[in-house]
């Protein structure tokens, strides 16, 4: 049997080197001699920069060298013979070093043979270990350049002065590139190895250019403007310059022009060659376009974020992807994503027709491109691709046969990748199941917002459709949302309830009396259809508690015991008899006591979610999250929940008391006025290591901080758990008691860099104050609450404090983004091995056991797990 091996070619390694002038000529298809591109009729000129042998860019034409069409022909190099050699700027430093460390007459490395041998051996050693030889080569250069008399020919060495970017002098006379080249040609091979260079692939004289390769036209395509005018690429412009000067140089040289003119032209040629290679060399002005814009030459094409390496090779633009605004849909599972029909009929998946699916595919083709589960293209066995249209769809469906490829629309159940930038961790790209929906936005369950860090204020997200079944399978197994609920960062759930889910659960599990209709209504969206025994019966009417209803979605066999978020950390915990119902006990899947809040089901905390995934698996976990969010939303709707400005109302008496606390803090016995007085009298005792002024500031800050806290507490007394904002703050859904206090009682001190606001005018912050006023008001203390409204000066200080936060965020994102890039770049090659070690892709061991215990941080195995096993085993037999 003859085996069809379809092993794709693999690049095993890439050898870098310099190209010799001879090689340039050999690989060139033509010598370029004319600076003109097209003749008057618009045809490319032979031996010009657009010579047809260099490749094709115009569709329809064929390459004169390889007969390929545009797109098939990779392009071919040409060459320019430089009249005089020029230095390659990239090697300017190396040329300097070589000039200084080789003899000016015999070109040998100015070191004793023994030293050379030693260096050569050390270089071999370092290379073998895969370490850099930079510092060693550095040492060779610095040592050799100190030698004054050549140990071989006895020649006295002269000092070589290097003038940036491409000039070299020996005492007063300039070393011309041709002289340098002559010297380098004579350096023996064995000396070259001591410089860390490879004489086979990189002779030093090749660093001086005598032949300039001309890149193919495919590298520098010209664009035709609407006016019919051709606009040439920057590289072509630069090449034109080089050829022009080269020609002029040639003419002058042949005419026997004076040395001065020759030198000028040589310098100009050098300038053009330099800027052709790199247009951002310091020391010379960058070559500019007619409009004044600096040209983008070879180096500029490679460098930076949008350069070839980072912009085109490491990351690319892709097909089969889409992007639109996102919006929430609590009816979707966390594993799903709602895809608009318009997107679903644009994105396709290619299927091969086989007997098993031919009927199904025929139906897709028959439906055509406009009826949603249809198809857009078919590819016939001969490789011909046909676009399906309303006209040919019936006919194509009839002729469809095995072996054809059908590009069918995205349909429900397809696996796609969903992503939101910035992609800071692996949970920023997860696999979802498609659910085609009307509308124009991507829909997702709000419980998956935390890993994407998404909200719905206009965020957009991306979708990618994988094109092979292998890729889809891999995505489904490794990248599905439910497989990523536990974050490897801290080993807890990153998906869970947010905002109303938490408030809803909080309210529901505190509900004591729910009748049958309501109970069934609350459970409607979940898979639960049966109610347990009622909690109590009043007048023959059965009632259930919220805790019972929540228990219905817990898997049987779940046991937990912990303090909820609302725990007040009493000195003595009363456990099950907690006054605030903050002690959660779940036995065999039944919530016996305690309130369910952020700590139980919230994203990042979610003890219950965590436990279910660890004990019952990811599928059960996903199901729980789905049920929980649905239950919570029904729960909050049953209870009713709103928040408005009158929720911050506090009694007159409290307002008066808050005013008094403010007054006390400023003018009272322990108030800041007293402190300022002491300071001015020079009686303020300064803290160790602080000046009087700093001490005063610190103490004022402390007093005013206390004032804010007291006013907040006072307001808090009048806002009970039945207040919506308090319910949200206490359960951990959104906001904090501090936010609430700022709304109801007092906003407090505004600060810049952790200090009171000091900047502004001379000796004062605003012209409304006296100079050197240390008072609270003059330095940004806001007595008012958000509800009562701020005075103009308070408002201004508030804006000052707020601005700092904005600047901080802007600076932070760029800094942490760079940190992240560096971290990933440094660690990306590490991989856990079968033997538990961590090695990089070369095989260097970094850790002998991953994290010292070999445990996956997303799964975790520690004291609690062992305790549980022991408890299970010993308890079971009793």
């Amino acid at each position, binding site marked *: 049997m003859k085996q069809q091996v379809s092993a794709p070619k693999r*690049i095993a*390694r*890439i*050898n*870098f080197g*310099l190209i010799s002038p001879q090689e340039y000529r050999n690989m060139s298809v033509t010598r370029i001699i004319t600076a003109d591109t097209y003749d008057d009729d618009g045809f490319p000129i032979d031996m010009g920069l657009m010579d047809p042998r260099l490749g094709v860019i115009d569709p329809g034409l064929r390459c004169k060298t390889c007969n390929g069409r545009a797109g098939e022909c990779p392009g071919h190099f040409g060459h320019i013979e430089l009249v005089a050699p020029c230095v390659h700027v*990239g090697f300017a430093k190396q040329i300097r070093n070589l000039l200084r460390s080789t003899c000016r007459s015999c070109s040998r490395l100015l070191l004793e043979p023994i030293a050379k041998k030693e260096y050569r051996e050390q270089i071999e050693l370092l290379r073998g270990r895969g370490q850099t030889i930079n510092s060693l080569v550095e040492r060779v250069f610095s040592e050799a350049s100190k030698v004054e008399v050549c140990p071989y020919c006895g020649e006295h060495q002269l000092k070589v002065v290097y003038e940036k970017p491409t000039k070299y002098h020996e005492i007063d006379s300039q070393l011309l590139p041709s002289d340098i080249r002559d010297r380098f040609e004579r350096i023996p091979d064995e000396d070259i190895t001591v410089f860390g*260079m490879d004489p086979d692939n*990189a002779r030093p004289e090749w660093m001086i250019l005598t032949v300039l390769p001309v890149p193919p036209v495919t590298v520098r395509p010209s664009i035709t403007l609407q006016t019919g005018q051709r606009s040439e690429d920057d590289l072509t412009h630069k090449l034109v310059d080089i050829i022009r000067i080269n020609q002029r140089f040639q003419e002058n040289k042949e005419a026997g022009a004076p040395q001065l003119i020759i030198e000028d032209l040589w310098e100009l040629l050098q300038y053009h060659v330099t800027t052709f290679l790199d247009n951002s060399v310091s020391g010379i002005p960058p070559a500019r376009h007619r409009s004044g814009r600096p040209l983008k030459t070879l*180096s500029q094409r*490679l460098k*930076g974020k949008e*350069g070839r390496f980072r912009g085109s*090779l490491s990351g690319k633009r892709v097909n089969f992807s889409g992007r639109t605004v996102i919006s929430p849909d609590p009816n979707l599972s966390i594993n799903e994503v709602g895809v608009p029909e318009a997107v679903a009929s644009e994105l396709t998946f290619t299927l091969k027709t086989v007997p098993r699916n031919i009927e199904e595919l025929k139906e897709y083709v028959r439906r055509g491109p406009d009826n949603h589960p249809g198809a857009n293209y078919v590819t016939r066995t001969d490789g011909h691709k046909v676009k399906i249209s309303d006209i040919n769809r019936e006919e194509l469906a009839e002729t469809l046969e095995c072996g054809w490829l059908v590009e069918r629309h995205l349909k429900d159940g397809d696996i796609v990748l969903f992503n939101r930038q910035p992609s*800071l961790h692996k949970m920023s790209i997860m696999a979802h199941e498609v659910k085609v929906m009307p509308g124009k936005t991507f829909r997702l369950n709000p419980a998956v917002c935390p890993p994407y860090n998404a909200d719905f204020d206009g965020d957009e997200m991306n979708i990618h459709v994988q094109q092979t079944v292998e890729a889809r399978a891999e995505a489904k197994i490794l990248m599905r949302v439910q497989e990523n609920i536990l974050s*490897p*960062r*801290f*080993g807890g759930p990153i998906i869970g309830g947010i905002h109303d889910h938490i408030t809803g659960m909080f309210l529901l599990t505190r509900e004591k009396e729910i009748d049958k209709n309501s109970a069934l209504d609350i459970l409607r969206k979940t898979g639960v259809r049966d109610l347990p025994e009622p909690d109590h019966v009043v007048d023959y009417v059965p009632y259930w508690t919220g805790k019972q209803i929540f228990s219905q979605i817990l898997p049987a066999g779940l046991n937990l015991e912990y303090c909820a978020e609302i725990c007040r950390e009493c000195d003595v915990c009363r456990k099950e008899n907690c006054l605030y119902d903050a002690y959660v006990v779940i036995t065999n899947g039944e919530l016996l006591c305690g309130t369910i809040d952020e700590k139980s089901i919230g994203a990042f905390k979610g003890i219950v979610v965590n436990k279910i995934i660890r004990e019952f698996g990811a599928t059960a976990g996903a199901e729980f999250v789905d049920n929980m969010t649905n239950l919570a939303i029904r729960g909050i709707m049953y209870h009713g929940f709103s928040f408005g400005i009158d929720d911050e109302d506090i009694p007159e008496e409290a307002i008066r008391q808050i005013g008094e606390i403010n007054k006390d803090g400023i003018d009272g016995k322990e108030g800041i006025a007293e402190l300022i007085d002491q300071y001015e009298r020079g009686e303020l005792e300064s*803290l*160790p*290591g602080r000046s009087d002024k700093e001490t005063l500031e610190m103490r004022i800050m402390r007093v005013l901080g206390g004032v804010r806290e007291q006013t907040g507490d006072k307001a808090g007394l009048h806002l009970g758990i039945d207040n919506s904002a308090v319910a949200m703050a206490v359960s951990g859904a959104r906001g904090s008691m501090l936010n609430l206090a700022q709304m109801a009682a007092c906003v407090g001190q505004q600060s810049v860099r*952790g200090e009171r606001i000091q900047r502004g005018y001379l000796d004062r912050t605003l012209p409304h104050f006296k100079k050197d006023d240390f008072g609270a008001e003059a330095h940004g203390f806001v007595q008012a609450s958000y509800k009562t409204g701020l005075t103009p000066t308070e408002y201004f200080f508030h804006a000052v404090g707020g601005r700092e936060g904005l600047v901080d965020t802007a*600076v*932070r994102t760029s*800094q*942490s983004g760079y*940190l*992240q890039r*560096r*971290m*990933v*770049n*440094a*660690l*990306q*090659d*590490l*991989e*856990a*091995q*079968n033997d538990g070690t*961590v090695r*990089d892709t070369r095989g260097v061991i*970094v*850790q002998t056991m991953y*994290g*010292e*215990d*070999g*445990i*996956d*941080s997303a*799964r*975790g195995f520690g*004291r609690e797990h*062992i305790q549980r096993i*022991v408890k299970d*085993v010993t308890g079971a*037999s009793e």
Partner: protein
Amino acid sequence: MSVTEESIKERVSPLPLPPKIRDILSKELLENAPGEAQMDEIITKVLEGYTNAGIEPCEPVGVVAAQSIGEPGTQMTMRTFHYAGVAEINVTLGLPRLIEILDARKNPSTPVMTVYLKDGVSKQRAQEVAWSIQKTTITDLGEIITDRSNRRITIELDEPALYERNLTLPDVIEKLETKLKVPIDVIGYTLILAPKETASKTTKEGEDAQKVVTLGALVQLGRNLKKVVIKGIESIPRVVIQRNDSEYVLYTQGTALKEALEVEGVDPTRTVSNHPGEICEVFGIEAARNSVINEIMATLREQGLNVNIKHIMLASDMMTCDGEVKQIGRHGLSGEKASILARAAFEVTVNHLIDAGMRGEVDELSGVTENVIVGQPIHLGTGDVHLVVKPQV
């Protein structure tokens, strides 16, 4: 059969478990004292649980670690705050501190040492050690009066200050004499210094070269005088004593670990600096590795961020695995990668390519970036699993 420590040890020690888990298991077994059959069951279940929680082979743990450290970076503050507990010493915190540690900076912005004492119970003893660490200059001991008309400097030493710092008059005089190399006149607690005479430049013709004390020399002497370290370590301008639970601990502004360890009364087993580079020099690379871990963990914890220590261990191990603390970035790990393409894709693209050409380097295409660039599957994760087909002959 009775359960003893030995019998448990016998059972547990040959198990293929990491030491930490083994210890927990032994402790639990000892406490619960199960029977033989139960013991077997527990051990089987623990082994099973451990195996199931193990890291999957081919997992790209490096990227996971990098993301786990980098992602919370967006939530950190930029500000420098006070040290928890010691209000007097400022310490860089938050994102700038994290960047500083990962950069392996030679000079961190706020070096601090935590000095533990051999006998930390007595406050007086702590104060004594503190004085021998904190830099004492002449300005701390008395008043300096520069007498311009007489071209001399008078120092009025403060006797209580000397006593407090456990210094005697001869100590001070000796220090000053050896360092400044000028004669010192002593009158009680007053020292008089005069700079050396130099030949005057403006000598009138015919006169002998007159020896004078120039004003410049006087000013110079004054400057040098203030620099002389009479007691303590030069790089430590301040020491703060703090009571931690039952003992006194010293916090220093500035570090000089090597010198501090030699000060009498300092406990060298616990004293640390917050500068991993310095720890590397004094204690070696293993200690530096732990220092990096501790510093990053402390920085993250202070910000209230929860990151598993494994990720930080991996980053730290990567930084220190070559025997020196290397930066995460261009001048360290990323700049020394074996692959040319990977280096070129990171930073300073052109230089790496040019150097590679010049040296005739070879890219073996083993890493991630290189293979992405040439368009091949990477050797990581599912890309590292191979099927070997043996065709039946």
